[in-house]
C-alpha cells in the first residue's frame, strides 16, 4: 500500500483579492493524527473546504490515494473515503441526533430510490447494525442519552460533538476535523483526543485544525503551520514549539 493518503500540490484559492490559501504543499499519510495550526484567518478552513471539494482551487492539484481528485464533487470525495466535521456545525437541525448520525453512514442500502422502496428487508437488516454503531459513537461523544432529541435543541458544545460524531459515523479513511475541541469541556476534549488516537491506530487518519495547541501537540505526530495563506512550518510538535518563528507568527512581529 502506498503510504501517502492525501497529497496537496501548489494549491491556491483566493476570494476577490485575498489569497486565503497560497501555493500550499502538504502530505497526509494513512493513519495517525495530523495537525494544522495558524492564527485566525490564516486559511486553514479554506484549505479544508478545498480538499472537501466545496471550493474549486484556482491553481494546483489534490491527490487522494494517488488519484487526482481536484475537480471532484464533495459526495464523490466522500465515496473515496473522506469525511469532515465543520468548524461551525452544519447539522440537520429538525432531525433527531440519531437521524443525523444515520444520514452519514457509509454504504447504505436504503438511501437509493429503488432500494428504499422495494428492498425494505435488506436495508432494515442493515439498519439494526447501523443504529448500534451510531449509539456507540454517540456514547464516545457523550450524546447517547440525547439520541431522540432534535438537533436544534442541543447546546453549542453538544452541536460540535454531534458534528464530530457524524464525521466518525462516516467511517472515512481521512477525517478532517475543524477545531473539534472548541467549546468542549477540557476533560471531555482530552478524552475525545485519546479516543481519536485509538481509532487512528486502526488506520484512520485524522487531520485536525485546533487552536488548543497544548492538546493538539500532545496527540499529533506531525504538525503543519499556516500563516496568511502560506504553509510556513512543518514538523513534529517538539520541533515546532522549539522554533522561534512559530511564536513570531502568533505574536505578529515580523
Amino acid at each position, binding site marked *: 500500500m502506498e503510504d501517502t493518503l492525501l497529497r496537496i500540490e501548489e494549491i491556491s484559492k483566493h476570494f476577490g483579492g485575498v489569497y486565503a490559501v497560497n501555493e500550499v504543499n502538504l502530505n497526509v499519510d494513512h493513519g495517525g493524527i495530523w495537525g494544522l495550526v495558524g492564527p485566525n484567518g490564516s486559511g486553514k478552513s479554506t484549505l479544508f473546504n478545498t480538499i*472537501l471539494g*466545496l471550493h474549486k482551487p484556482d491553481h494546483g492539484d489534490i491527490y487522494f490515494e494517488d488519484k487526482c481528485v481536484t475537480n471532484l*464533487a*464533495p*459526495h464523490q470525495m*466522500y*465515496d473515496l473515503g473522506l*469525511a*469532515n466535521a*465543520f468548524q461551525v456545525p*452544519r*447539522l*440537520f*437541525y*429538525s*432531525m*433527531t441526533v*440519531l*437521524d443525523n448520525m*444515520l*444520514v*452519514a453512514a*457509509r454504504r*447504505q*442500502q*436504503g*438511501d*437509493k*430510490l429503488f*432500494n*428504499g*422502496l422495494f428492498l*425494505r428487508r435488506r*436495508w*432494515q437488516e442493515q*439498519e*439494526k447494525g447501523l*443504529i*448500534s454503531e451510531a*449509539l456507540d459513537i454517540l*456514547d464516545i461523544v457523550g450524546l*447517547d442519552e440525547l*439520541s*431522540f432529541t432534535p438537533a436544534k435543541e442541543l447546546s453549542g458544545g453538544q452541536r460540535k460533538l454531534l458534528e464530530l460524531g*457524524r464525521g466518525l459515523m*462516516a467511517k472515512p479513511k481521512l477525517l478532517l476535523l475543524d477545531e473539534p475541541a472548541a467549546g468542549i469541556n477540557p476533560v471531555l476534549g482530552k478524552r475525545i483526543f485519546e479516543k481519536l488516537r485509538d481509532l487512528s491506530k486502526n488506520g484512520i487518519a485524522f487531520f485536525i485544525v485546533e487552536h488548543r495547541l497544548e492538546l493538539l501537540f500532545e496527540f499529533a505526530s506531525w504538525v503543519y503551520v499556516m500563516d496568511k495563506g502560506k504553509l510556513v512550518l512543518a514538523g513534529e510538535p517538539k520541533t515546532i514549539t522549539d522554533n522561534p518563528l512559530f511564536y513570531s507568527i502568533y505574536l505578529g512581529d515580523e
Partner: protein
Amino acid sequence: MDPLLYVLDLVVFIGIFSIVAISLNLEFGFTGLANFGKVAFFLIGAYTYALLSNIGVPFFFCLMAGAVIAAAFGLLISLPALRLRADYLSIAVLAFGEILRLFVKSEDWLAGGDWGLTVAPAISVAGVSHRTDAFINIALVYFCLAICFLVIHYLANAPYGRAIRAIREDEVAAEALGKNVSKYKAQVLMLGSAMTGIAGGLYVQYLHCVLPNMFMPMITFTVWIMVLLGGPGNSWGVLLGAGLVEIFDRGTNILKDYISIPIDPSNLQYILFGTLIILILLYRPQGLLKESTVRTKVQRLIYNGRHTIKNRRN
C-alpha cells in the same frame, strides 16, 4: 342539483387534488424544493391524456404517458434547480406553467386552442347514472391516490427519507456526507411531477374535457395552501389540508349565491386564500399536523421501548 352527486363530486375533487398536494409535499415538505410550477405538470398530464385518449389509446396508457412526460419535464426543471437560487427557481417554474397554458391556448392545431377538447370517460357503461359514474371515478382516483401515498410514505420512512430531509436542512452538509444532491433533487422532481401528471389525467377524464383555462396559476397556489395548512412533511396532514381547502373552496362558492357583496365573489375567494396563507405562516408555520420524524421499522421498535438501548449497554 342532486345533493349526493354534489358530495360525490367534492370527494372526487378532494382525491385528485390530494394527489397533487402530497406530491408537492414530497418536493417541498420533505426535500425543500419550492415548486411553484405545479400546474404545469398538471397541465402536461391532462393534455397528454386528452390527446392520446382521443386517438384511441386505452385509459391506463394515457395516464402512464402523462406521468412519463410530466416526469421528463420534472427532470428538465431540476437542471436549473441545481444552479438557480430557490427564489429565482420559483419564479422560473411559475412562468413555465403560464407559458405552457398560453401555448396550448394559442396553438389551435394541437388541442383545440381556447375551445379545448372533449375527452371520453375512462369507463363508460351505457345508460349509467351520474351517481354511478361518480362512484367509478372515486374508485379510480382513490386507487391512484393510495398508490402515490404509499410510495411517498415508504420513501419518507426509509433511509431515502432521511437523505432528502438532510438535503432540505443543509445541502452542503448532505453533499459532504456523500449524498448526491443533484441526483436526489432530480429524482424527487421526476416522481412528484409524474404523480401530478397522473392527477391531471384523472381530472380531464372526470370532467370529460380539457381547456386552457382549467390551468390557471391559482391551481398551484391552492395546492400550496393545502400543504402549508396541513403541515409540510406530514402526509396525513397534507391530506387533511387538501380536504379542508377543497371544502372551503366549495363552501365559499355556495355562499356567493346567497350573499351579495360589492366586489366580485371569486376575487373575494382569492383574498380569503391569501389571508389564510398569511395567517398560517404567521401563527402556525408547521401546519395543522407537525412534521413526522423518520420512522423506520427498527427505529419504531427502539422508540417504543427506549429501555432496550440502555439495556444494550449493560
